Structures are given as C-alpha cells and as structure tokens.
C-alpha cells in the first residue's frame, strides 16, 4: 500500500514540473509582462525598469525559471498583488470557507443523488425513474449562477427564510479559531453562531451541489441498472438470500465503483462552481477571492491556486483509487 502511494506521488512530479513551465510561460505572456501586471497599466517606464531589476525579470528566461521553481519548492508562492499579503496566508484564511461550502454541496449531492439514482433504477420505467431522468437533465443544463439566483430569489427575497449572502450575520460577534465557522461555533459553545453560519451555507451549498447531484444520479442509475440483472444477482436470488442482503451487499456495493470515481471527478466542477456561487452569494471564500484575482490580474494568486488544485486533484484521485480496493476486494492495488 505504502509503495503504491509513494509511486503515485512520484508520478505527480512530472505533471507539476510541466505545469510549472506552463504557468511560468503564462505569466511571461500576460499583457505588458509581469512588471506591468504588478504595477498596473499606468506604470511609468522607470518604475517598470526598477521592478524588472528588482524581481529579475530582465535576466535570461532560464535563470528566471530556475529561481521561480526554487521559490516554489520552498513553499514561497509570492505575495498577492491585490492585498499585499503572502498567497499561502490568503489561502489559509479563505480555504476553510470554501471547504465548508463544498462539504455541504457534496453531502447534498451524494445524500440525495445516490438514493435517487438507486431507486430510479429499481423502479425502472416508472414515474420516479422518469422524474429522476428529467431532474438530472435540468441539473446539468441550468447554469450554476442562474440556479443561485433562483434559490436566492425564492428563499431569501420572497420567503425570507434563509440569509441572502455572506458567511455569518454581521451582528453575531463570534470567535474564530479555525475559520470553519460552523466548527468554531461548536467548539466555543456559541451554538447560535454555528447555526447561523450553517444557515448561510444552505443556499450556496444547494446551488453548488446541483450539478454533481445530477451527474451522480445518472451514474448511480446507469450502474445499478447494469448490475441488478447480473448473473450473480440471479444466483443470489435463486439461493433464497434475503432481498435486503441482495440489494445491499450485491447490487449496491457492486454498483458503487463508477459512482465513487465520478464523485472524485467532481472537484474541478466544484471549484469552478464555487467561483460563481460565491460571487452570487457574496460568500467570502476562495472562489470569490479568485474572481477578484482574475480582475486584478493577481497572477501570484492564480498561479498558486492552479498548482494547489493540481496537487489536490492528484491526491483525490489517489484516494479514489485506494477506495476501490475497500469497496471491491477483487480490485488489487497495483
């Protein structure tokens, strides 16, 4: 097992190496070059020359690249142009918000998606099945940000039962240790603060979770449909096993492999979705920070984030692969 993990992490190195070259070239191709990106378009030529000298942008490309990689290896992702604080520090304060949001979205997507897909397949061709197909189609074709608008309009503006934006009511003076607001509230015993933070997560969570939900429903349905007519299921029935055992240990378990793969693949979608959802709900997470970074051409932030996501992606894929052998003992980790 450890050897497998080591090997997979080793395989990540060439990807990150390639990515660092692409990112390096990307920054050099920004309009006006990195110095203009740093100083803004109204910078005087003297100021640009000074920054070029200071940061070494006037040195040969290879030297620049090596310095750049050297810094990355030391964990130095540079300083955000917009806020003037180190990129890593900015991520550390904002990532918990997005993680909280993503967890709510995924819990919703998996919690509703897997049962819905399963029962759609079980009652194949009936009303529930048809509605699940239609629902998943809608989930895939309605843009996240539009869905966010609809939810906000109905639940926050019309009915006023959920907060329209932010992470926590401004009137609540809560203590924050971990930046996970719900967790903070529970840890400090400020349960009303935790509850309020949770309420703020519901609408963005639903909006963000809908596309993964639609995809999970489809995969689960297709996978269960394929498995439930397999020979071993027939054999299990012929043996007279309890229906519950057949459904739980035979059908559901065997149908889960593609579902787990799909859940692992939702990360990219969730990150893109978070940028849009957080924008609509004025939710102060990494997505909204990225949006501002895009506009301020805050390239150290974008660069750092892309590397961060690539690593996260690889780790999630590894976890997904390892979980196969737990779900299906026939799959040996190789």
């Amino acid at each position, binding site marked *: 097992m450890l050897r497998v993990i080591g090997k997979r992490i080793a395989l990540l190195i060439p990807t990150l190496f390639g990515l660092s070259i692409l990112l390096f070239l990307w920054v050099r191709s920004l309009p006006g070059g990195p110095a203009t990106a740093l100083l803004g378009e109204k910078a005087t030529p003297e100021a640009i020359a000074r920054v070029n000298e200071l940061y070494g942008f006037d040195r040969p490309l290879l030297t620049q690249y090596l310095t750049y990689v050297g810094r990355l290896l030391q964990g130095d992702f540079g300083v955000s142009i917009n806020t003037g604080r180190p990129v890593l520090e900015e991520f550390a304060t904002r990532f918990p918000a997005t993680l909280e949001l993503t967890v709510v979205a995924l819990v919703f997507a998996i919690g509703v998606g897997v049962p819905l897909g399963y029962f759609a397949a079980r009652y194949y061709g009936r009303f529930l099945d048809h509605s699940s197909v239609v629902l998943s189609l809608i989930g895939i074709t309605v843009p996240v940000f539009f869905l966010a*608008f609809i939810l906000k309009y109905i639940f926050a503006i019309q009915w006023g039962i959920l907060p329209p934006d932010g992470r926590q009511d401004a009137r609540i003076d809560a203590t924050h240790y971990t930046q996970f607001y719900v967790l903070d509230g529970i840890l400090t015993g400020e349960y009303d603060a935790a509850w309020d933070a949770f309420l703020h997560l519901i609408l963005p969570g639903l909006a963000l979770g809908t596309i993964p939900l639609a995809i999970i429903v489809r995969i689960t349905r297709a996978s269960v449909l394929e498995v439930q007519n397999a020979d071993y299921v027939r054999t299990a029935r012929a043996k007279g096993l309890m229906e519950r055992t057949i459904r739980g240990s035979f059908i559901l378990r065997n149908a889960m492999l593609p579902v787990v793969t799909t859940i692992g693949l939702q990360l990219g979608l969730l990150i893109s979705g978070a940028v849009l959802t957080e924008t*609509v709900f004025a939710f102060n997470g990494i997505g909204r920070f990225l949006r501002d970074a895009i506009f301020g051409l805050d390239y150290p932030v974008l660069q750092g984030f892309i590397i961060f996501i690539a690593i996260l992606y690889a780790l999630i894929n590894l976890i997904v692969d390892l979980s196969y052998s737990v779900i299906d003992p026939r799959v040996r980790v190789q």
Partner: protein
Amino acid sequence: MSTILPPAAGGSAAPNDPAIDTGRGTGLWKDAFLRLRRNPQAIVGAVIIGLFLLVAILAPLLAPYGGDELPGRTSITPTTIPGPGEIDGFPLGLDRFGGDVLSKLIWGAQASLLIGVVSTALGLAGGMLLGVLAGGLGGWVDNVIMRFVDILLSVPNLLLAVSIAAVLGQSSYAIMIAIGVSQIPIFARLLRSSMLSQRGADYILAAQTLGLSRRTITMSHLLPNSMGPVIVQATLTLATAVIDAAALSFLGLGGGLPQAAEWGRMLTYAQAELAVAPQLAFLPGACIAITALGFTLLGESLREALDPKTRRK
C-alpha cells in the same frame, strides 16, 4: 465544467424497427439518422436548436432594436424599471440601462451561437490534431502529447479559460479562444482512445496487408471510424460552451460596452435588481438553460443512436 456524461441506459429505438433490421447494410450514419428520427428526445432537442438557430440568424430582422441600443433610456429612473407589459413598445420591459429586454435576448442568441460554434470548432480542431498525432503515431509522441493533455486536464476548465482570457484581455474573442482551448484536452483524449480501440480491428490489418502507408491508414481508415464519440462530444460541448460563455461574461470577462447583448452579462447586471425586477435575471437565465438543454438532448440521442450496443438489440 465540461463533463463526459454516462450513456443514458435504456435505448429508445424500437427493437424490431424494419428500417434498422433490414438485411441490406445501411451505413452507420444513415442508420443513426433513422434512429434519431424515431427518438422523441432527439426531436425535442432538434426543435429547440432549430428555433435557437433561427432566432440567432434572423436577429437583425426579429429584434425591434439593436443589441447595444438604449431606446428606453428616458423611461427608466433609478427606482423604476418597467417590467414586461408595463410599457408600450417593450413587450418584455426594460433593463437598468434602458435597453429593450426582448431585443437583447434575441441578439444574445446570436452572440451565444457565435461563441458556442467558434469555440467548439477551435476545441475540436486542436483536439483532433493532438489526438491524431498521439493515436496515429504512438510511441514517444503519444507519451509527450498525453502528458501535456494530463497537465491541462488537472486545471479546472473554468480556471483554464479564465487564465487564457487574462492573457488575451477582455473581449468576446478572448472568451471564444479561452473556451475553445479549454476543450482541447477532452477532444484529444477522446479521439486518441477511440483510435486506439480501433487499431487492432480487422480492417486495419487488411489495410496494412495491402501495403498502404501509415498516413493513409490513419487518415482514411482509422480517423473516420473513430469519429463517432468525438462528434457526440462536440454536440454536448456546444451545450457546455454556451453555459461557459455565459459564466465568463457573467464574471465580467466579455469586455465591450456594459449594456452589450450577452445572456451572461444580462445576469451580471440583474444581480442588484433581483428583488424588484427578477425577470431581468430569469429571462436570460432561462434562455441559457433551454439552449443548453437542446444541445444536450440531441447529443445524448446521437450517442444512443451511434452506440453499437443499443443498435444490435
């Protein structure tokens, strides 16, 4: 943002369809077309796309006003924005700039069509080039190209598009190129794997036995036979391209005038008035969703129609 969807199980073509089960060999594409015609899902998709195309192409004739025009500028005040039917001459009301919502929706269809088609064509062309090189040449070329594709795939699509748009500046061309390039890795992967699965086929062996050159085999035998999944993906990509384009212009990467007629941008400016004028968000949002639905329905029906597993039933 783009996802490769699982095949919707349960083929919808009638199993004993005389048009399909004829002993005379009908071609793959003719066969697929016959099956599409019998699939209600495909027809709904085709009708939606047909209407969308019609509106987009005939926009200059259909729209009462130009896309950037502000004919109702004198009828709006900071506190009142006339809604649908509230003011003569503007059946769907005005937006905060004084633009005619109906005209903007119609011109928006044209903008979406243009961005969708150009970006998908770009992604398809780039992806096919890489895919053919990788799948046709194999060896180290394949390795290098696929590692490159893996790197691009490890960056979420929207972020990739945004990074490209950052280099190109804010304009609708930037959006086209950004979305197109971000689709390249998906097409490249798909075409390569489709070609690899065909490489061992008998007809390839036959072509090799005949002494045909590798280029001829790749271009006239392998490639045409590997195009099925790519064409399906292209149809589905049109849906994601429409959504992604709206997302990028929603985020503000479209450039140009603030009142430009783009569905995504209409949503950006609808945010502030959501409580008083929700139609400003709902109308363009519904347009995006319905267009995407049309391409998705057609794409999925096409996949079913081309899938040999459902065909042999």
